């Protein structure tokens, strides 16, 4: 932002104005006309579709900030101390590979990563710096729901893409209101619907108890599961919640849920609550068919339940090839990932981690979206992301097609397979359950 020399005078004037004016609230920004993207754009199959991201109302639109003939600069903010760092490093390794072997849009891609310690105030500061000082083209893979929300109004007002938010909140599927933010992992409602579908197929008269985290994360599962179960013989017989800041204490809730006579348990839990929930269910000698949020399906969150022998048989859902699943031990794509990943900066340990795979896949999808865009311009890339058609990536489960179509289909990945914990890892089980284009129907 340019600064004029007479700002001091203006400042004094402002102080004077403040004393009298009541100020005004203004959603539309300070005006200033911008380049306008046409109403139609080309999608990843070369067809003309309606543009989702238009630049008419942008505040200071700078479509090619962070892009030169040689380079695309991206930024991310996540807790680098937590295992989430693997996400960024997976993406960085992918970009390093492409930079060396097959540059994306003939440019080198660099991903700057800022630490936010999982504090949303820090995320917003990082976003301000990345966009205003470092001048990134877009942000990629920012971790956490509130964290992405902390700058959602800003990146949409300023038309700076926030690509593949690393959270399953349905908030990233509102291109009408927030066309400059798009999600990545299957949305929590999709996941809840996948579990409901599994029950329809395997336990059609399930009596389900739901334990959820008392915030938008937990309620996403709760509401979507109820919506998906409507009109079936599946009944929700009990729901209890726990506070996100007190995730290790769920005795009372588990007792209450067991008392409902439920034979199935949906755990909409995450991070520190995953293992305690499983342990408590086992402690109280309850043995329902249990499904646990895919956000729990990492070795670190599952470790205590696995050590105590309380995890076996628990269901979850997956959409990526897990590098530690023996099923993929000889898979050519996984082998290639492990080899290339280590060649481009990942450790032998990191290439065994599902979070690294996630970062790698997201970077691959980003690259494909950029390739499909007519130019490396913010609106063009964003519109390309909103009109993906049948993209695939080698590390996605076979059969998963990544597709979006503006407000009609705002969620990129909507298919998952049920996996079952064997005491050490979640093992893929059964067929792909595909809700492509349907996630919206589970969001009340």
């Amino acid at each position: 932002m340019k600064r004029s020399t007479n700002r001091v005078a203006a400042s004094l004037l402002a102080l004077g104005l403040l004393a009298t004016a009541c100020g005004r609230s203004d959603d539309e920004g300070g005006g200033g006309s911008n380049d306008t993207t046409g109403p139609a754009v080309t999608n990843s199959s070369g067809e003309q579709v309606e543009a989702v991201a238009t630049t008419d109302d942008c505040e200071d639109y700078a479509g090619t900030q962070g892009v030169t003939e040689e380079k695309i600069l991206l930024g991310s903010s996540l807790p680098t101390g937590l295992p989430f760092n693997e996400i960024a490093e997976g993406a960085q390794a992918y970009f390093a590979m492409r930079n060396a072997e097959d540059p994306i849009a003939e440019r080198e891609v660099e991903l700057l990563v800022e630490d936010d310690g999982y504090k949303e105030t820090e995320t917003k500061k990082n976003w301000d710096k990345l966009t205003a000082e470092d001048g990134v083209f877009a942000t990629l893979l920012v971790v956490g729901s509130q964290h992405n929300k902390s700058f959602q109004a800003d990146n949409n007002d300023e038309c700076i893409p926030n690509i593949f938010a690393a959270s399953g909140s349905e908030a990233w599927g509102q291109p009408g209101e927030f066309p400059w933010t798009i999600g990545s992992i299957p949305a929590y409602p999709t996941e809840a619907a996948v579990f409901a579908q599994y029950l329809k197929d395997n336990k059609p008269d399930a009596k389900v108890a739901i334990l959820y985290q008392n915030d938008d994360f937990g309620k996403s599962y709760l509401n979507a599961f109820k919506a998906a179960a409507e009109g079936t013989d599946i009944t929700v017989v009990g729901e209890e919640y726990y506070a996100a800041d007190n995730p290790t204490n769920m005795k009372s809730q588990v007792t209450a849920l067991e008392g409902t006579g439920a034979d199935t348990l949906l755990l909409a839990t995450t991070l520190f609550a995953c293992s305690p929930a499983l342990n408590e269910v086992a402690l109280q000698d309850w043995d329902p068919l249990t499904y646990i949020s895919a956000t729990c399906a990492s070795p670190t969150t599952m470790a205590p339940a696995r050590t105590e022998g309380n995890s076996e048989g628990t269901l979850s859902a997956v959409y990526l090839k897990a590098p530690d699943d023996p099923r993929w031990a000889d898979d050519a794509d996984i082998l290639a990932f492990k080899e290339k990943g280590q060649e481009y900066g990942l450790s032998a340990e990191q290439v065994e981690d599902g979070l690294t795979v996630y970062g790698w896949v997201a970077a691959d999808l980003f690259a494909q979206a950029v390739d499909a865009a007519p130019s490396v311009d913010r609106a063009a890339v964003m519109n390309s992301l909103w009109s993906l058609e049948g993209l695939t990536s080698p590390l996605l489960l076979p059969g998963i097609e990544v597709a979006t179509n503006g407000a009609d289909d705002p969620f990129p990945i909507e298919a998952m397979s049920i996996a079952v914990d064997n005491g050490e890892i979640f093992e893929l089980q059964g067929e792909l359950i595909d809700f492509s284009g349907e996630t919206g129907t589970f969001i009340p």
Partner: protein
Amino acid sequence: MGGGALALLENRWVRLGAWLVAALLIAVIPQSFEDPDLQIFNYALASAVAAIGLNLLTGFNGQISVGHGAFFGIGAYTTGILVADHGWPHLATFVPAALLCFVIGMAVGLPALRIHGAYLALVTLAMATVFPQLILRYESVTGGGSGLAVPKWNPPDSVDLSREQFHFYLFALVTVAAYLLVRNLIHSRMGRAIIAVRDDETAATVLGIDAAKVKVMTFGLSAALAGIGGCLFAVAFRSLSPTLFGILLSIELLVAVVVGGSATLAGPIIGALFLEWSPEVIDAGDGQVSQILFGVLLIALMRVAPGGLLGGAKRLLVRAMPPPALEPPDDDEPAASAAPPPDTVEGP
């Protein structure tokens, strides 16, 4: 002890100089920092106003609160809800926010008539615990866990300022107003009563001070200022969610007060700036190592300057200047006491 230095601090010209420096800083900072950094000043000023409020209660009146984050949150949500859902102009929301916090603050202050020290701290801690839960529960009004987006307060078209610069001037103005309010209050009859109740409640009562009224009023005023700080935060941050206003925030406000210098007038402002800027300055490359350094810094600071940054600076000045003979006591500036303030947490 150090009467020379204290006299110097109270010298009219020295004070005028301090005001000039402050005015200069207010004028220069927005021209010298990029918007993202200016935003950090804005967050700091929002905390500063709240810390000024907390200092009135904890520093001058001796009642420890670890629940002021809740008032900050009430202020922020009042602004957020009124602007986003009812189309109020931002500035107009400060009034109901302050009033609401004043009333709730007085209510929370009532138990303080009977409960003291650490026990009272627990009552305020309860507030910090309950507030985020209430936001989650009354989702239809507050947005719950999904958060509440606060519309922007842009500068008027007639001024050539970025939004961050505009906010900075606005926030600085509010901070100065809060500072003056507390300064004038402390120098008034009521202010002397506030301090007397802190120093010795029984003696104050004997002197005819209505200690109960003083304590409850102070709690209310303190809460109102914390609420206005929250309004500023809502204007600057614009994305409200319950996780922002947990216990951590209440503790941070307390740290700002003590690190800046409790029972000093400018201390809370310095403390808030310190707190907001430390994570930017202390960067060991690893988030956790930076945190360790910050914790150690806090401990070290309290060791060398238990009276806080401002208290420590004054003590240095006092040491540097020999006292002249027979300095008459001057009660014009109670904040200038070099000794750290006594406190009401009762030791065994």
